[in-house]
């Protein structure tokens, strides 16, 4: 059986930037073991599989080892494939996922995901600063730790002890600092416990970052940059109980895969 495969760099407008996702459009679901094997073979952070369902789609994400319950960049990658290649001109779509219904809107080259808030509360755990190799000015916790530093350089220069980060109780550690030159805040995200030493561009971390920075800066529309090696860019907006995460995408690869069955 021959299936289409796309590789999309999401949260960037530059080739080889952002976060690459595999995207496999399907007419109906493949066996779970086949989707897992395809995701392992692709060896991208996530591969998205989707099938049409009424006016919308059902969407699932697989890492090389497990099914993921929420993935922003592969959702953006999927929306890009639909509106660019499969249904050109379509600007609105929704996906039923393990994390409920996710809406995506396209305006020009910007794709906006509508995601739930995950506000962080003050936390105390000296092991976080030790694992990061630098003491944050402020520590909060949601599904991941949020370690706040004073300066862009503090975040850029961190060399965490990934083994110690993996031993922490939460999903991972987000580090952040104020931005400059039109960027409101910068961040990096480490989740070695989930097999991701450092994620290049993470949509869902803005569910934690936006409530913090919107309150601190007194504005609801903010521009964020993930200062990983590949660099991710985000146009975010905090509404009453949701966060809108906007990003661009480029198609890096189009092809066909050959799968038994």
């Amino acid at each position, binding site marked *: 059986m021959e299936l289409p*495969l796309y*590789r999309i*760099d999401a949260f960037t407008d*530059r*080739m*080889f930037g952002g976060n*690459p996702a595999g995207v496999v459009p399907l007419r109906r679901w493949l066996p779970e073991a086949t989707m897992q*094997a395809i995701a*392992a*073979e692709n*060896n*991208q952070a996530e591969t998205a599989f989707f099938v049409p369902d009424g006016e919308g789609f059902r969407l699932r994400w697989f890492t090389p080892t497990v099914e993921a319950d929420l993935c922003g960049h592969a959702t953006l990658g999927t929306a890009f494939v639909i509106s660019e290649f499969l249904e050109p001109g379509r600007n609105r779509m929704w996906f039923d996922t393990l994390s409920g219904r996710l809406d995506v809107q396209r305006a020009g080259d910007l794709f906006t995901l509508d995601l739930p808030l995950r506000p962080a509360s003050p936390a105390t755990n000296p092991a976080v600063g030790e694992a990061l190799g630098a003491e944050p000015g402020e520590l909060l916790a949601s599904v991941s730790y949020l370690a706040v530093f004073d300066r862009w350089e503090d975040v850029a220069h961190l060399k965490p002890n990934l083994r110690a980060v993996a031993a922490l109780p939460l999903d991972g550690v987000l580090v952040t600092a104020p931005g400059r030159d039109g960027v409101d805040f910068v961040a990096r995200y480490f989740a070695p416990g989930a097999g991701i030493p450092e994620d290049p561009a993470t949509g869902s971390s803005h569910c934690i970052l936006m409530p913090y920075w919107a309150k601190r800066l007194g504005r609801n529309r903010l521009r964020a940059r993930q200062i990983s090696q590949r660099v991710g860019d985000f146009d975010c907006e905090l509404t009453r109980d949701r966060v809108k995460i906007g990003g661009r995408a*480029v*198609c*890096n*690869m*189009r*092809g*066909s*895969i*050959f*799968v*038994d069955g």
Partner: protein
Amino acid sequence: MELPLYQIDAFTNKLFAGNAAGVVPLKAPLPEAVMQAIALENNLPETAFFYPEGEGYRLRWFSPAVEINLCGHATVATAFVITEYLERGRLEMAFETKSGRLGVERKGDIFVLDFPARQIKPGNQPAVGAALGRKPVELVESYSWLAVYESWEDVATLQPDFEAMAKLDLFGVIATSPGRDGIDYVSRFFAPKAGINEDPATGSAQCVLMPYWAKRLGRNRLTSRQISSRVGDFDCELAGERVKIGGRAVCYMRGSISVA
């Protein structure tokens, strides 16, 4: 610019097994930084880039992080792409590489690499067994350590301490034991120092394994299996100072990449 990209599973005849390689046929050389960026984006153990040169080809291999000196599985994958898609019917080819000229011959569905045999000698380094978590019955020194065990299960159940292993002096550690059911020996290969905790199917490890097993078993043609989670299969022959490493390949993906 659009370039073709293939993803081939080498040293196997089954999809999702063996060792995955990206293969990018070129008409002319690309800047190194572009090849490195493509290899990083592919995020496969190696991506091969090749272009015609004289009667043969110039071939280079990139891991996601660096250019590699020698890579067996991506060479099999490249030979597969050439004989299957680009020059159907071609059975012999030569690649100019960082490790000199490498010849590949296709025999039916088997691709045979002609590699140099590695020198082996008895070794003595207790830290190797300690890093593997099980003391081998014999230790051999070559460009990597070769730790010999009594049974397939001894090798299959190893759970190495990769941090300790990365501190050893040689390139990596090969663990091996006798095989069964038509397989002469089995192996696994660990190279945490090179960023590869465990390699799924390693052509070049046979350059160490064959001099050892051919002598021990008294035969020059041996069938071997790498018992990683993906499993690699090799038909090997020791011919004097050379090792002929035969393997199959399957195509997982054909596509085209955009390079800005």
